[in-house]
């Protein structure tokens, strides 16, 4: 199953460090509302890297592993989204 080498891990780590640097730089710029969106997007990419490579989701077989993260994200989106349909109008 795991015939990848450890270099992949190092590359992923490097990517994470660079993305962290980008996040901090973006925060230093004055982009207003765009800032939070970009920063969250980068956080999502970093999480994707950790999930797929460090946590091996990319190499897992089976429907459960393919769907569980998307499902939990959908659940959270509904939580937060539906809550905002309420509080946005108060």
């Amino acid at each position: 199953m795991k015939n990848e080498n450890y270099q992949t891990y190092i590359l992923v780590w490097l990517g994470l460090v660079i993305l962290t640097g980008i996040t901090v730089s973006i925060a230093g710029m004055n982009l207003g509302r765009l800032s939070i969106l970009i920063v969250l997007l980068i956080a999502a990419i970093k999480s994707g890297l950790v999930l797929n490579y460090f946590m091996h989701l990319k190499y897992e077989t089976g429907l459960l592993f393919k769907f569980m993260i998307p499902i939990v994200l959908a659940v959270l989106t509904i939580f937060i989204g539906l809550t905002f349909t309420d509080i946005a109008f108060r």
Partner: protein
Amino acid sequence: MIAMEIHRDDTGSKIGMWLFLLSEIILFGGLFLLYSAYRYKNPLDFHLAAWDLNRSLGTINTLNLITSSLFIALSIFFIRKGDRKLSMIFLSATIFLGLLFIGVKYIEWMTKIGHSLYPNSPRLLGRSQGEILFFGLYYTMTGLHGLHVLVGLFILSVMLVLMVKGKINENRFVPLENTGLYWHLVDIIWIFLFPLFYLIT
């Protein structure tokens, strides 16, 4: 004499750990929901309060956890290859970085508390509602996360002991893999906590 076969279900235990991780995501998700609601209502106050946090320390801790995630992944990689010594070195390094994280968090909290900025402190209560909420969320979320780091460090140490005893080896390393999964999740949660508290000035 009947030979007892020890039942082992590696895929089952991995699925078990993933299910637990999903529940943890929902747990923290609830807190992130609170954050998003209160921030929506108090955007300027949150920007203001974030100035009190030390961005450098936050960045250091982020790099800390990212690197510790690399180390635990490498530890698992090497035990699969049968290189127990290298695996233990990386596992120890993971624990070391985790302890550093706790150390930095401790310094951060103690500084805040030293400046009388803690939940229900008179100085904090003198600030605006939004800032009070920011700090309440800060202590709760980084506190809960820190608790998870502490538990993770404990379990990682148990794994190290098991590895020293040879109970975790190249034929049986699923406990270490599952511990790694937990540790990566702790890393992911921080990956979201960091920008939402430290980078919103």
